[in-house]
């Protein structure tokens, strides 16, 4: 574009796809080393390409668009295989390829003894292909391809142990729930076509920018449909139910797909389409409320889970809720920033949890763990980095991004302070349940016994191999320093991250900034300085408060699970009612089952299967066949082959004709009217 050298963006998704094809088609016959080499090379090459782009990033004219070919051309409507690159895309690319590559490395060690090694890496590469397509796509349609594709890959990987019934069911559940969200996305696309006549991002956003009078109305409808899509993919209320069950998949999958990358697709899409959301305060409020509610709700559930991976799953839902909340108060850069840091520390937590599970030969129940601090020290130290980061203790990554979200929520007009309080309380819960996991796993005495179930063939608690510890170490370092790129100005930083994203975010981003600025009575030119000074004080106080809250959560967990381990049991008895509700995850699955799944099943069975399928469809087929048989049975008698019966029918027919004509019926009236002229 504009004479600039082509970046060959299409290569980035296509390399993992090549890896998928190679491993998927030939992997069964290849030794594990070759399979892992193919998978690592294809992902690593993508990562190198992205790094190369990042290195030249400042010299590019953005947004950079690259069209590989025309896909659909119908009348004035047109959709291309087009990729685009801007600051947001670059960050997502770095997360997806970087974290993806690390998790690929980890998987080589983790999956070493599993059946279907090649299948796992083929699916993993397929996922990378679709995720990169989603991130790079320049129009809604191509995003949708990636959107559906990652859902497919997620389904395949959740159900990786397909002989296990619960895994197969979890895969189906994830797929079906995601379909509901996809429906919303689809409707949003139809609405976009109907109102803008194009699906290209820059054309749609340019049209919105040209028409400042567009506000609410159909933009709200589009935004709400997109929100439905995002709640499905990013596991928000009401469609979050699939994510906890998705933990049936192998742990690296949980780390890559269900923590670091795929579940952030909804956030990414919301930020990408922020021009639409900015014009619809209603949709933004919906996003903010959904986010805050999910963050709080999932955090409460996370407190009482006993499966180490499920705690992390609910934690993921809760953190995604934070990102949603950030989007809802139009603090998009804060949302993406949290997405970035979350990708680091949640991938780390999942991989460390995987390492713990690996060490214990498949044990996932935290009640059976304990005292692992000295047995698996490297896992312990990396896990410490992750836990401290997510808990929001400075200066670790989670603190910076979470604090940014809380601050931006607090200063947003309307229900901002309420949302901030919910967020703060969630931060307390987050810190509590993460330290609960931490103390239950690594401190105290070992409660369970070793058992051989996972088939690793090794005995006792053992530290994971180096190939698994290397990604853990990298991610641990990133969890510590990853937040520094966005260190807030209030604490003496430059908020480089926020400014980096400015070109993407600020294009049509007016209403909320202006509203918050409008509280000042100073002239516009002089406003910025005193206001930002004031904000800095507020931000400092808020940071202090959230740090204290995080420490309080950690201390409570320490009290409950190290100092007085009998205390949680007592409290559970004392508040048995609410304990039961939370322990059973508010019976959401059961309520959904009774209110949605059961009626739909009933409808499907009675109306669709019995009535429509059996009676109408089958009935029509059977009826037609029976009718033809019956008619044939009658007509068959005429075709007896008996010559005299033919002759009989012939005679009867001739006689009937004669009689008819004799009694005045003239079928060929003109012929009958010919007068026979007697010659003279």
């Amino acid at each position: 574009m504009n004479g600039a050298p082509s970046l060959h963006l299409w290569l980035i998704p296509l390399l993992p796809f090549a890896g998928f094809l190679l491993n998927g088609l030939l992997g069964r016959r290849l030794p594990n080393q070759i399979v892992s080499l193919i998978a690592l090379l294809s992902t690593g090459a993508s990562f190198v390409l992205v790094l190369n782009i990042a290195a030249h990033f400042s010299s590019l004219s953005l947004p950079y668009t690259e069209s590989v070919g025309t896909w659909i051309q119908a009348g004035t409507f047109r959709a291309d295989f087009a990729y685009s690159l801007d600051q947001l895309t670059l960050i997502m690319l770095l997360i997806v390829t970087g974290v993806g590559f690390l998790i690929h490395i980890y998987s080589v060690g983790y999956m070493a003894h599993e059946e279907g090694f090649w299948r796992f890496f083929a699916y993993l590469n397929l996922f990378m292909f679709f995720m990169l397509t989603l991130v790079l796509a320049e129009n809604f349609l191509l995003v949708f391809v990636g959107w559906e594709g990652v859902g497919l890959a997620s389904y395949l990987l959740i159900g990786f142990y397909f002989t296990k019934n619960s895994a197969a069911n979890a895969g189906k559940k994830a797929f079906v729930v995601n379909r509901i969200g996809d429906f919303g996305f689809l409707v949003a696309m139809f609405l976009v076509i109907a109102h803008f006549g194009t699906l290209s991002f820059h054309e749609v956003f340019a049209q919105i920018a040209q028409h400042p009078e567009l506000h609410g109305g159909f933009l709200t409808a589009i935004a709400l449909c997109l929100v439905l899509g995002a709640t499905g993919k990013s596991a928000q209320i009401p469609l979050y139910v699939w994510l906890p069950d998705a933990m049936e998949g192998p742990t690296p999958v949980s780390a890559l797909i269900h923590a670091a990358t795929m579940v952030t697709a909804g956030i990414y899409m919301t930020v990408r389409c922020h021009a639409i959301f900015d014009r619809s305060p209603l949709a933004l409020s919906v996003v903010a409320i959904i986010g805050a509610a999910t963050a709080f709700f999932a955090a409460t559930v996370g407190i009482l889970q006993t499966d180490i991976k499920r705690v992390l799953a609910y934690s993921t839902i809760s953190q995604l809720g934070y990102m949603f909340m950030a989007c809802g108060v139009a603090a998009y850069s804060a949302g993406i920033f949290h997405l970035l840091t979350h990708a680091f520390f949640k991938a780390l937590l999942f991989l460390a949890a995987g390492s713990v599970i690996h060490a214990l030969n498949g044990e996932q129940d935290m009640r059976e763990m304990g005292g692992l601090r000295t047995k698996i020290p490297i896992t312990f130290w990396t896990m410490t980095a992750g836990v401290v980061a997510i808990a929001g203790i400075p200066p670790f990554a989670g603190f910076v991004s979470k604090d940014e979200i809380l601050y931006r929520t607090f200063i947003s007009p309307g229900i901002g302070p309420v949302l901030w309080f919910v967020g703060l309380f969630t931060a307390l819960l987050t810190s509590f349940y993460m330290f609960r996991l931490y103390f239950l796993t690594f401190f105290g005495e070992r409660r369970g016994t070793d058992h051989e179930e996972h088939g690793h063939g090794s005995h006792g608690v053992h530290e994971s191999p180096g190939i698994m510890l290397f990604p853990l170490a990298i991610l641990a370092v990133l969890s510590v320093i990853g937040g520094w790129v966005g260190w807030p100005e209030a604490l003496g930083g430059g908020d480089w991250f926020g400014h980096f994203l400015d070109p993407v975010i600020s294009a049509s981003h007016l209403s909320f900034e202006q509203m918050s600025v409008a509280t000042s009575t100073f002239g516009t030119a002089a406003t910025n300085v005193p206001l930002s000074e004031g904000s800095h004080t507020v931000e400092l106080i808020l940071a202090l408060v959230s740090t204290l809250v995080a420490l309080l959560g950690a201390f409570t967990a320490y009290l409950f699970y190290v100092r007085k381990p009998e205390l949680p049991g007592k409290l559970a008895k004392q508040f048995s009612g609410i304990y039961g509700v939370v322990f059973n995850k508010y019976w959401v699955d059961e309520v959904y089952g009774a209110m949605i799944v059961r009626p739909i099943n009933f409808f499907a069975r009675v109306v669709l299967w019995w009535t429509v399928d059996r009676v109408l469809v089958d009935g029509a087929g059977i009826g037609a066949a029976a009718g033809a048989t019956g008619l044939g049975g009658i007509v068959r008698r005429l075709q007896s082959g008996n010559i005299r019966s033919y002759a009989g029918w012939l005679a009867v027919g001739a006689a009937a004709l004669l009689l008819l004509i004799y009694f005045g019926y003239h079928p060929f009236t003109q012929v009958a009217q010919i007068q026979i002229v007697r010659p003279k």
Partner: protein
Amino acid sequence: MAVPIAYYLVLSAILFSIGVGAFLIKRNIITVFMSIELMLNAVNLTFVAFAHQWHQVGGQIFVFFVMVVAAAEAAVGLAIIIAVFRTRNTLNVDAVDLLKL
């Protein structure tokens, strides 16, 4: 005064009806065949009668055609009958209902 045409027509109708009746009733293929000849000749009789009545020779010529066709038919038909008898040892038309030998 010659014989009125109605007499010829009535005779022809009687012959034709006998032919039809025989065709339907009789089981022996030879007899069935003969009844066909009877019907053809009943028709020939009407042709000749009308030709005489209207003084047009076309009817008489047509009779020759019918006779030629009947002769050819007799040749083919008898050959078929012989073939059927050789394979089935019967001339009963009711036993020959498979539309093949």
